[in-house]
């Protein structure tokens, strides 16, 4: 066995020498982009319109993709106008398949691009599924899902997978009008067959859902484990209500955007290793400022959760866009900062 392994690794080293200074997979990419073990990609198999401004992309992940857990998201790298942009999308399919549903974000570069231009056969870049917005292995007896707009997407993944294991499910979903309900037909069918209790709220007519209104709609709310996903305003309200009711541990939320409360002062950002210097606006995260200047920045969730984007701040000051907290480093000090939620507060220097 050891001999076979030695032979295999020896043979592989020869193949690597054949292709130096590139790696063998760079050549393989020419014919089989999904087979590259070093770069995860996926191919669009099917593009299915859901509503006027939402499409479902059925994807075939490349080699090396690990199955997701329902409720998790994947990051897709999409080339828009020649620039690779990464965005996180909740997986809407059960494990074994990989579908995401892209909802148009007003002014959103990637979502609108995908809705207009995604076609079967196109290859996108992909990252492993991540996120802890998932059901626990011991399925709770009574579950409440509170969703609004595109917030229904991770919940749909859970319903499509776990519904058989859940006895009592209430889904309270808000959308502006009935036609804008993503997966409307499927949800209504589940409700009609008695598998879930669905409360559809159409905010243009009924107004925004308040926690009090929710409590009135779901009287046994305190007995339920709740998963909520939607706009930050709604999630903040729910969080406060659950806290007050002493139920904080029973509420699980998923945000699509960081809750920003502050802007920095802006300033000159220097990327020490590449020598790139950019004038960054106080409202622009360091991550985006670097990317716009062509710097290859590590990135992940882009909302301050996953810590993939952390870089060492070696000089100057940055402000956390979520709470306005100022981080200043003095000479010789190094502080790791989350570049996706930090903006320049005066000149600053990153060791990257």
């Amino acid at each position, binding site marked *: 066995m050891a001999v076979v392994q030695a032979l295999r690794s020896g043979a592989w080293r*020869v193949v690597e*020498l*054949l292709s*130096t*200074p*590139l790696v063998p997979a*760079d*050549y393989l990419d*020419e014919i089989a982009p999904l087979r590259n073990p070093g*770069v995860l990609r996926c191919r669009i198999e099917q593009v299915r319109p859901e509503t006027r401004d939402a499409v479902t992309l059925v994807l075939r992940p490349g080699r090396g993709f690990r199955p997701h857990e329902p409720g998790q998201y994947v990051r897709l790298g999409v*080339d828009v*106008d*020649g*620039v*690779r*942009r990464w965005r996180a999308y909740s997986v809407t399919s059960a494990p074994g398949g990989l579908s995401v549903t892209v909802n148009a974000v007003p002014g959103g570069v990637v979502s609108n691009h995908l809705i207009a231009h995604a076609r079967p056969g196109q290859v996108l870049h992909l990252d492993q599924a991540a996120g802890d917005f998932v059901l626990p292995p011991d399925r709770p007896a009574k579950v409440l899902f509170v969703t609004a707009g595109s917030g229904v997407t991770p919940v749909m993944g859970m319903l499509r997978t776990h519904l058989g294991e859940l006895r009592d499910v209430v889904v309270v979903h808000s959308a502006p009008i009935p036609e804008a309900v993503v997966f409307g037909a499927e949800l209504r069918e589940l409700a009609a067959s008695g598998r879930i209790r669905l409360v559809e709220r159409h905010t243009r007519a009924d107004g925004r859902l308040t926690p009090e209104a929710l409590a009135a709609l779901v009287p046994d709310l305190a007995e339920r484990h709740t998963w909520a996903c939607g706009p930050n305003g709604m999630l903040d309200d729910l969080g406060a209500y659950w806290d007050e009711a002493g139920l904080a541990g029973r509420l699980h939320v998923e945000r699509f955007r960081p809750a920003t409360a502050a802007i920095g002062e802006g300033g000159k950002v220097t990327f020490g*290793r*590449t020598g790139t210097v950019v004038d960054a606006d106080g409202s622009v995260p360091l991550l985006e400022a670097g*990317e716009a200047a*062509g*710097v*290859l920045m590590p990135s992940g969730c882009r909302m301050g959760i996953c810590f993939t984007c952390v870089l060492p701040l070696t000089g100057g000051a940055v402000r956390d866009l979520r709470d306005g907290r100022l981080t200043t480093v003095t000479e010789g000090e190094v502080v790791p900062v989350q570049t996706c939620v930090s903006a320049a507060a005066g000149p600053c220097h990153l060791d990257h």
Partner: protein
Amino acid sequence: MTTLQRKSVNPIAHLTAADVEAIGRELDAIRDEVIASRGARDAAYIRKVISVQRRLELGSRAVLLFSLFPPAWLAGTAGLAIAKILENMEIGHNVMHGQWDWMQDPKIHSTRWEWDNASPASQWKHSHNELHHTYTNVVGRDNDLGYGIMRVDESQKWHPLYLAQPLWNFVNACFFEYGIAAYDLELGRNLATRKRRRAPAFRAAVKEVRRKIGKQVLKDYIVHPLLSGPSFLHTIAANFTANLIRNLWTHSVIMCGHFPKGVETFERTSIEGETRGEWYLRQMLGSANISGGRLMHIMTGNLSHQIEHHLFPDLPSNRYAEVAPKVRDLFERYGLSYTSGPLPKQVASAWAKVFRLALPNRDDSATAPLAAPEPRGLATRWQRTPV
């Protein structure tokens, strides 16, 4: 001004300081326009070139497995030479300049690219991007001028050793990739003293180059030949020939960039406190283009647009042809000469200079200060190398 060109007037004497800054603003506007319009078309271009290059290389190497047969040897060698040229010029050189960094593709990024050349990317980026592009044609600062082994300007003191410089230049052309590696290491300077030879940074750099060369040699002269079995020796010859062709071609193209008649050199002190407009002007005067068709531009890595490349080193190479008419128009409006010519003419002109400067300056007037009019309104830093 170089005596070689025998200019009796300073080519920028008619420009005021305000003119120079206006030129800078116009060039900035051209640059901004391209940056604002970079997009999917450009990304598709570089991906296409990379794809064609890789297929061509794979195909040629496959054909060379049978290099025992003369037609296979010829086709494979030609294909491999072209693939190597594309890889070094239109892809490697330009990617390492950061021309494609804006795409945010880690596979096509200046910080990640490694090229099919003896010089490791990191060292080449330093000597080329930082030194050559900053100190373009400044005698004594820009090692691209003569690579430190040749006399490239009349103002350089003649020495009998320079008699052999046409030979050095030819040898350097044949083994250009190793010449580049040596000059990225600043071998001449670093081997000079014991202290420099022993400096840890230098030793680490040498080790890096040795490793890179080792892998390159192993690939071209051992592994691929072994793979071709009975064609072993023929494949070695084919790979050697492809490398030779690549070296001669890149050397010729690069000589055409800064050597031909019409290109100015600058003295060391002339760039102190240089403004942006003045920097642009030095790039304009210190570079020369090669005229030709689309294929010529691609095969030279668009260094046929050397002037445009030196003005905008990090713009995507496929855009140089597009901005060239605007740059040329700017030259004309400001009464500057835009040096350009077909490849054979430019190569001959550059070689003529190499031969000419191998000999001492012909007349005494060449070493005496030239009675050129003082540049009006321009700081003395814009004076040419005294002659």
